[in-house]
């Protein structure tokens, strides 16, 4: 086994181990009832933001395209999931919550994937700033589109309209325009969140260490050289973009079914930027980093609730400090020296940014 291969294997194992151990510990805490209420309520959102961060990392870190509309895909998934779950329950009387949740997640992934293809075709022809601007606009378009969408179940049929008056009286509203998806039956579970995180990690880590993933990285590193090696650029950019949007859609369904109402304004530009912060903080192309930073930055605002008014201020300062410390070469080399004995234990030197990036 070559050194690069071993490092990659160690990196992947550490990533999975961190997630699995965290799940087992938390699951144990839930059984023992030693978990705080606040943390318990955070578990599913943490899973959601981990998946969002890892999938956005695929677009930004691995494929090298700045996408600012990632929350848009999450919103597509959330509303699709809410509609599918509500429709199955109200029109078909499906009581099995797990099956409904799985179908909602699959449906959310599919619709977000289709949206990803539709957006990707024009958008991925653009580069750099333009791509960022268009994806940003897409996020806003989705939000405004949902704002005027009315979906209801009437007599066992799904009614879809952009005008509320078209919805017959007495129909069970699923998506009520700007009020969003209403009266959702909360069926999301932490276990499903964990499964989604694992699926995301498997998909993303296996993808970047395969032929397709190498092609995606090659395009990021040097587009012209990749093309002249016979790598079709649009195909592979699209592959990364659509994979990320499918994952975002799946987790969007989980997120939507975790609360009784979902409103379109939950998925604004700010939310996309939030996910971007997770990615940048965790390190571009570093999957484990995304997992950790998404977890910390989801928990942090809650922990800082005690500071009330100063909460966002402290949050911002923490962010700035972390950015400075992780990017300072002196501090990094100091940290590397501290970690050297640990690395020796594994018998190989790891590049300081982790194997997945290499």
């Amino acid at each position, binding site marked *: 086994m*070559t*050194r*690069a291969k071993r490092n990659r294997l160690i990196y992947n194992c550490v990533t999975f181990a961190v997630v699995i151990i965290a799940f087992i510990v938390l699951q144990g805490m839930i059984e023992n009832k030693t978990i705080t209420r606040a943390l318990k309520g955070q578990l599913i959102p943490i899973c959601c933001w981990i998946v969002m961060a890892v999938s956005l990392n695929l677009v930004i870190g691995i494929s090298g395209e700045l996408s600012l509309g990632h929350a848009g895909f999450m919103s597509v998934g959330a509303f699709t999931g809410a509609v599918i779950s509500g429709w199955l329950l109200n029109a078909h009387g499906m009581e099995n919550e797990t099956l409904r949740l799985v179908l909602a997640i699959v449906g959310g992934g599919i619709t977000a994937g289709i949206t990803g293809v539709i957006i990707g075709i024009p958008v991925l022809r653009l580069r750099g700033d333009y791509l960022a601007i268009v994806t940003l606009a897409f996020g806003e378009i989705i939000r405004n589109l949902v704002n005027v969408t009315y979906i209801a179940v009437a007599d066992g049929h799904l009614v879809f309209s952009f005008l509320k008056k078209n919805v017959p009286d007495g129909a069970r509203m699923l998506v009520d325009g700007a009020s969003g998806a209403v009266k959702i039956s909360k069926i999301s579970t932490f276990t499903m969140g964990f499964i989604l995180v694992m699926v995301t990690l*498997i*998909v993303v880590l*296996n*993808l970047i260490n*395969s*032929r*397709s*993933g*190498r*092609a995606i*990285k*090659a395009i*990021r*590193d*040097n587009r*012209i*050289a*990749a*093309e*002249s*090696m*016979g*790598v*079709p*650029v649009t195909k592979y950019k699209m*592959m990364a973009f659509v994979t990320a949007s499918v994952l975002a859609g799946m987790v969007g369904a989980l997120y939507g079914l975790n609360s009784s109402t979902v409103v379109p304004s939950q998925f604004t530009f700010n939310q996309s930027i939030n996910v971007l912060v997770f990615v940048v903080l965790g390190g571009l192309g570093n999957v484990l980093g995304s997992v950790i930073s998404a977890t910390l930055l989801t928990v942090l605002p809650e922990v800082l609730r005690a500071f009330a008014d100063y909460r966002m201020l402290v949050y911002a300062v923490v962010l700035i400090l972390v950015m400075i410390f992780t990017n300072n070469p002196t501090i990094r080399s100091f940290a590397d020296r501290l970690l050297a004995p640990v690395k020796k234990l594994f018998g190989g030197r790891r*590049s300081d940014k982790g194997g997945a*990036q*290499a």
Partner: protein
Amino acid sequence: MTEVKRHSTTKMVPVPSHSIVPERDLGQQPVLETNHLGIEFGGLKAVEDFNLTIGKTEIAGLIGPNGAGKTTVFNLITKVYEPTNGTVLINGKDTKGMNIVQASRLGIARTFQNIRLFSNMTVEDNVRIGLHNQIRYSMMEGILRLPRYWTKEKRMHREALDLLSIFDMQDLADVQAGSLPYGAQRRLEIVRALATNPSLLLLDEPAAGMNPHETEELMENIIKIRDQFQIAILLIEHDMNLVMGICEGICVLNYGKIIAKGTADDIQNNPVVVEAYLGKRKEEAK
């Protein structure tokens, strides 16, 4: 056109398209044929009426003063630019309307004047990108780690190391490409291009930045590559020792036009070429 003389090793013979190819390639389909190839950038004729034929196993050179349009010719052949006039035939196939990827699949591979490696990836992964269209499996097979993934990855690994061994670089397989020394980066670019299984290899200043010893080694390797892979090589180079030493047919470009074609001897003795490089003699200028 220029008369045909004996090169030290190869006999060059004329072909119908007013070009010359090595005698051994005469019966074979030429790898590259360009007819009246030209491109204009907003009225500026960067390349004009460029006719060149390269035999199946020929090592050809493209030389000329700075700004003569040599790299533009490469960009026309590899379809970075769509020519405004004329045609490019690769192995007899017209490349009109093709893009870079399609041209690459026809069997063209190139290196770049300013090195363009995938510098954040390892040396081996760079070569594996070259193998992208040679050894294939789908995205799903990769994500689900199906048996095909393992067999194909193993084959990729073996072939990548085989290719790297041409330049004795197999020990560097795990090194980040961007951290290689300059000469090794140039060699890696050649290996990566070879991995695409080309029939025509375009080298854009392969010896730039190399010391005389390294250049000597490179010359041997270029001949070795040609013999081993039985491919044609067209190279742009300013190092005349390299060009005159290994190129069988040489084409001189100035201001976008071919000013001379022929063997090394022809070119060295051609007054037009000397003038393009060194300018007119004082008494002649008067």
